[in-house]
């Protein structure tokens, strides 16, 4: 056993000196008034819109790959939902983005115009939208079918009479140019409608003060966006139309959706955002350091390998412990295999590797030297749910928040320790540095190494070779522990109920687009147990099984 727990001296509360805050349930806001148990366990939520990812997936399912390809350029201009205010700040989840800017509105319009023009210029393709097209493009009966049926998929619910009339008016106006232009105008009108972009939940009956039941279509959309990030499929729509989305039918749909490959992709998207794999810097090391590894391939293969790993865990009942400890792998290429020092067809990684922490996608970064601060901050933020505040530049001398200077006779750990030793640095770096140093046996590509080659960044030459010290003392959920190396850290996390709770909290943030509130405490507790016992997929499914899943509490 490589961990020794000592008496808990340093409590997390002592650390809350403006440096870190915990990502977890907030204070209960007592609203007053009689409520059912389900209503009392429902946190108020605001209006979500489709993220850029959800928008693309939803459009793909609605209009198909060809029409979407015609909109590739403006789709690329839809603003990213995840962007950090500064280089040191952590990224929000894409689902946490709210509202729109002019850039969103312009890009959405361009996307919808491109799709509408695709169908205008390829009338034969409109058959997929309504079987009476393209022959009936100027026939009001046919267009009514298009508006009712395709419109129902766009709005994710049946259209009201007023909404149908608005779409038909656009058709009538377009006929002045041509029937194909008129169909394009209908499509543009439907996509621009607020129920397409926004996840409106406004149709169900009132349950109690400010708490409403979702109607069948709203439940169907919640489920499909939760599991897949896109609109319901026909089978799910059918259940909604039949008013059957309760009890056993709902349970069967939950199981069906989460078993679908689209749910695996959605889970992979969570891992990608959780660990910020979508913001990895490109491999930029010089050829002498890469030693034959193709940088462009490693860029892709390292992320794919991580995706395969977590996707495989999701599909096969993997638990949080597996996430931390499994060294199973599906490599898919020579570049990543070289990093791990195995053959490309290997299915397990060497014993020094354990779970996600020791995979290249988690470890790697730019430059020939490791960046233990980035690694340590990632562990604190992503795995321990400690929000590390970015350094406030006004509190430090100019140009002091920079990597330490090169030194031929100091290890990266020694250089970073010196650079962060000032008192006003240490208040945060006493948390950040230790977990980063534990990963020092892995270089900036993620290769395992017994010693640290000291590389002159200018010449690229190895000028020294120093021993690696990966042993650290660190605070883990209020306890001071001795950690020997990355594997020991992974083992400590695998055994920790708090670490599981953090993982569930992160998944909740990704799927629900907000931080858990006091009302979500019961769900967090249930899912924490489930992710340890039954697995990651079951923990995600649990969101749909919570009583609050069928309720909406309006934020006043």
């Amino acid at each position: 056993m490589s961990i020794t727990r000592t008496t808990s001296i340093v409590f997390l509360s002592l650390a809350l000196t403006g440096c870190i805050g915990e990502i977890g349930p907030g204070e209960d806001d007592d609203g007053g008034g009689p409520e059912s148990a389900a209503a009392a366990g429902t946190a108020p939520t605001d209006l979500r819109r489709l993220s850029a990812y959800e928008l693309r997936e939803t459009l793909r399912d609605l209009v198909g790959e060809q029409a979407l390809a015609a909109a590739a350029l403006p789709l690329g201009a839809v603003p990213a939902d995840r962007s950090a205010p500064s280089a040191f700040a952590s990224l929000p989840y894409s689902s946490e983005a709210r509202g729109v800017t002019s850039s969103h509105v312009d890009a959405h319009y361009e996307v919808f115009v491109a799709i509408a023009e695709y169908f205008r210029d390829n009338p034969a393709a409109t058959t997929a939208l309504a079987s009476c097209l393209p022959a009936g493009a100027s026939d009001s009966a046919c267009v009514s079918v298009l508006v009712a049926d395709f419109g129902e998929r766009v709005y994710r619910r049946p259209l009201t009479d007023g909404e149908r009339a608005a779409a038909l008016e656009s058709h009538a106006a377009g006929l002045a140019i041509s029937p194909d232009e008129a169909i394009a105008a209908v499509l543009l009108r439907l996509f621009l409608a607020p129920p397409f972009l926004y996840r409106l939940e406004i149709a169900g009956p009132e349950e109690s003060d400010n708490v409403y039941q979702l109607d069948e279509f709203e439940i169907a959309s919640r489920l499909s966006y939760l599991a897949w990030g896109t609109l319901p499929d026909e089978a799910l729509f059918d259940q909604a139309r039949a008013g059957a989305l309760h009890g056993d039918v709902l349970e069967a749909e939950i199981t069906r959706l989460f078993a679908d490959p689209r749910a695996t992709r959605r889970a992979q998207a969570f891992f990608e955002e959780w660990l910020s794999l979508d913001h990895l810097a490109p491999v930029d090391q010089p050829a002498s350091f890469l030693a034959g590894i193709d940088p462009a391939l490693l860029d892709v293969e390292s992320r794919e390998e991580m995706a395969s790993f977590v996707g495989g865990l999701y599909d096969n009942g993997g638990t949080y412990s597996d996430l931390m400890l499994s060294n199973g792998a599906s490599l898919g290429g020579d570049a990543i295999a070289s990093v791990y020092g195995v053959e490309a067809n290997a299915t397990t990684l060497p014993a020094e590797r354990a779970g996600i922490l020791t995979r290249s996608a988690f470890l790697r970064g730019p430059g020939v030297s490791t960046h233990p601060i980035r690694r340590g901050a990632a562990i604190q933020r992503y795995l321990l749910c400690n929000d590390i505040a970015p350094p406030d530049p006004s509190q430090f001398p100019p140009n002091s928040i920079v990597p330490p200077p090169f030194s031929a006779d100091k290890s990266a750990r020694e250089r970073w320790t010196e650079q962060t030793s000032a008192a006003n640095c240490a208040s945060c770096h006493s948390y950040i540095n230790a977990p980063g140093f534990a990963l020092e046996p892995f270089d900036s590509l993620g290769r395992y190494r017994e010693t640290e080659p000291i590389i002159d960044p200018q010449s690229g030459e190895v000028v020294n070779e120093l021993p690696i010290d990966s042993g650290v003392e660190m605070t883990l959920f209020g306890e001071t522990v001795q950690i020997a190396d990355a594997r020991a850290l992974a083992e400590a996390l695998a055994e920790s109920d708090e670490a599981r709770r953090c993982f569930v909290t992160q998944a909740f943030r990704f799927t629900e687009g907000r931080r858990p509130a006091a009302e979500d405490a019961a769900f967090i507790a249930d899912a924490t147990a489930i992710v340890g016992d039954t697995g990651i997929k079951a923990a995600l499914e649990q969101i749909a099984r919570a009583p609050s899943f069928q309720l909406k509490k309006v934020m006043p």
Partner: protein
Amino acid sequence: MSKRDSNAARIARRRFLLGIGGVTLALPLLPSLTGESFAGSAPKKAKRFVFLFTSNGQRPENWYPADPSNWTDRAANVREASLSQYRGGMSRVFGPEFDSLLPKMVLFRGLDSVNSTGGGHNAATPLNASRVLPFTTIDQVLAQSSKVYQSAPPVRSVHLLVKQAFQSATSVSVDGSLESVEHQTSTAAAYQKLFGGFVPPDDSVGKQRIALRQSVLDSVRDEYDVLRESSRLGADDRARLENHMDLIADLRDRIGATGAQCALPRDPGEIGLESDDNLLAATDAHIDMLTAAFACDRTRVATLMLCPGTDLRDFGSFGGPSGDHHAISHDAVYNPDSADALGYINNWYAKRVASFLSKLDSIVEDPDTGATLLDNSIVYWGNEDGCNGYDAHPGWAMPTMLAGGGGGAIQTGRYIDYRTIGKAIQYDGGGGPADQPTDYIGRPLNSLLISLMQAMGLEPQDYETGGAGYGDYSDIYNNQYSVSDGQQPLPFLAG
């Protein structure tokens, strides 16, 4: 594994990752890897590429702005600064006429044409990164690419040259069979080639379409107006929907602004160049024809040589310094007056460049976003020779400027320095003494060409010919440069 095999494997890998070629993946891809690329997608706004040429190199003190105090390090040996700080005249060459264009430009330092054992004056160097070998230039790769032309265009590429009658014609362009592409010097012939028999389209349908879309946006706005009254919305939700509604109304008004109109340029007729007096008129005519050709989508690829290679023009007749451009460029190494004269000459050419850029930027192509013809184009101003430190025309420190950005493919408004500060280029050829000052070593110019082709939508399999990268990688100054760097696009050019 040979270079070709490794390249083929990489392409196969790319195809695999893009999910084309019939390979089924064992596990789903990461969403962010699949989101960006679509096989066979066509850009809604066509991208244009134009190369502007001048010759005889530049003096560093004329070409570069004062070293900025606010460099931002992007990576080791890559730093950048904002060009906007140089309003009011960036350098002797780039005067205040570039002020409004600075946010749409990129100025480079540290791009070296790395195989410079030959002498200077290979006009195709900026487009094929070769000083000595015939090698297809990127304008020709672009002109033949289905990524630039999804269907056959009226004119694949146009090549124009302004030169005095006595000067020999030269060419910046080399085609796929390694033949130099002849540049058109006749303004009448250029007009005929670009606009002969062409009737600009009647845009009444376009106007009707804008009115139709405005009516759709009005209707959408009304729907937001009803929705925002819903009692099921919180205060923040309501504010967001009201903001969205306002932005829809704003968009509705903006698409009503008139967009780019394709109109025939004035037919210049034949502008004779026996007299120097007509050089400016001919240059302006070529610029107007190119602008209209782009606006009317008659072609998407052009080269415009503002002067021939080894330009011998004497600017005394324009009120400038006497003496021919080429002789002045050599004398400038030893003689400050000649260095200043060279600054005058290149500022004269730069004013033509600014005029062209301003015309491209005055044409709004996309009323929705305000994107101009310049925004959708990549204009590359290059030179056959480098920023010379001494009396030869070696190929390091190639004077290189971009404008436009190719529809957002290149992030503009930046001065980017790719040199390794402190590491001097070791030069031992081309007739120059080895102890002369050079410059700090930069990156192979090949990388710029790769970046430009990728910004125009090409992928490696579209331009690689038997090896990774593009252009000539032979004889790279005794291996001072990294070939693998030169096989990649320039880092951070996209942002």
